[in-house]
């Protein structure tokens, strides 16, 4: 998720400062990005430019489907990323940037939640490990 957020910052800059058309911006992003996020940009661009006449939203959703299988995304992660795709490229720059800000906030919140859950689980497993060890020692003696 952190990688996606970093890449989205680059995409936002391309749109805001470069006014780069979406297919070209995706190509640039794929060039700098790392696996597996790289595949999300590559596939979105491929769907967008395959001549089928897909809109950015449709291309994004198709690419997300295969990406979610490669990356360990939760249902919430997927839902937020899908929401971002709605109306993608159909608004002016200001509206587009608002969508980016919203997405970044949502992703930050999800990442925070994921980290909290991880910390809690870490603590739980550590405690369970200690208790299991103590139980084993008691049983042995």
């Amino acid at each position, binding site marked *: 998720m952190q990688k996606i957020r970093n890449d989205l910052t680059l995409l936002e800059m391309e749109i805001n400062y470069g006014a780069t058309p979406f297919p070209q911006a995706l190509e640039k992003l794929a060039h700098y990005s790392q696996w597996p996020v790289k595949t999300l940009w590559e596939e979105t661009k491929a769907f967008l430019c395959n*001549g089928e006449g897909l809109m*950015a939203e449709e291309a994004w959703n198709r690419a997300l489907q295969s990406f979610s299988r490669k990356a360990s995304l939760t249902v919430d992660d997927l839902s937020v990323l899908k929401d971002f795709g709605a109306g993608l*490229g159909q608004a002016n720059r200001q509206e587009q940037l608002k969508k980016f800000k919203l997405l970044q906030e949502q992703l930050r919140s999800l990442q925070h939640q994921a980290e909290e859950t991880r910390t809690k689980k870490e603590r739980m497993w550590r405690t369970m490990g200690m208790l299991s060890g103590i139980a084993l020692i008691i049983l042995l003696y």
Partner: protein
Amino acid sequence: MGNVNLTSKATHHSEGKEWFSRDILPYLPNPLRSWLNKLSEERLTKLEEIRLRINKPVLLQIGGGNVWLTEQGNLATVGAGSPFILSEELMLKTVTLLSQSSLYALETELSQGYLTLKGGHRIGLTGEALLEQGHIIGMKNFASINIRLARALPGVADSLVPHLIDQSHQRVYHTLIVSPPGAGKTTLLRDLVRQLSDGVPGLWPGAKIGLVDERSEIAGCFRGIPQKDVGLQTDVLDGCPKAEGMMLLLRSMSPKIIAVDELGRKEDIVSVWEMLNAGVTVVATAHGYNLEELANRPIMGDLIKCNVFERVVLLSRRLGPGTVEKILNISGYKKDEDHAISRSLTHFVGHNGNWHSGRSTLRLQAKAIAENKK
């Protein structure tokens, strides 16, 4: 004023269907795409415009007449059968495809109401204008799209070129192409520029041309690169206002000929005088039906009355787009032209803020023009 009567019709070269499949169809959603893909080569050759309007039938302008798409996707005369009605959703999809899902990247184009596709095809858009301090800064909620197909017709200027070259001085006459809308003046100018740039064997060796393509229609630039053949020695300034563009090209590219489309603004005329002053030939077009009508217009009239253009080509749609009605051979400057030019120049700069400084500078220019011509 001697007239050379000449009637010729622009030949529509058969270009196959590939250009349409490559340049236009990818930007149309289904079912429009599959229906238009069925258009015969003959119809495509004559197809001029595709007009999409929300909640209205889809109209195709073919050979000057309109037909519409029926619910089954066939072409029918307007009024015959039940037409296919374009939904709001399909309009949104078309706009998204035309912009490559990048409306944010087209704010400048949308503020002018059009964008250009690869291949030089012009897409006109209307909808709800976004304003800032009284100026259009963009558009949203699109309601109409006009896809205007641009096709190079190499050779349409063949019969014209010999009349526009002064063989004795190996120069091109200052030329104005006058035509009503849709009669092929841009197409003719494009081929004329190509031939004057590349040269015509035994007639003209070719020359450096500066082309100011304010509306991206002549060279059909896509991201600054001409999509149409406008010649080996042509430098294109795309999307630039004509007046500023002419001056920029004059300073930077040392052209022998400057070509512009649709002269008519006050500032354009001042730049034309600058070109004449610098010894650069001007080849331009203007909207109009005949010379008399043009001469009565406030701005263009000044140029016409001063005989700036030595050749005026009148076009019409009488025998289809590109019918050359007449080539007028207009005599050079008269002895009293200095006065006439000065009066004319003060007329069109007289009402702006720089009247005094403008008048003295332009009078000097006018004298220089007169002396050069003696």
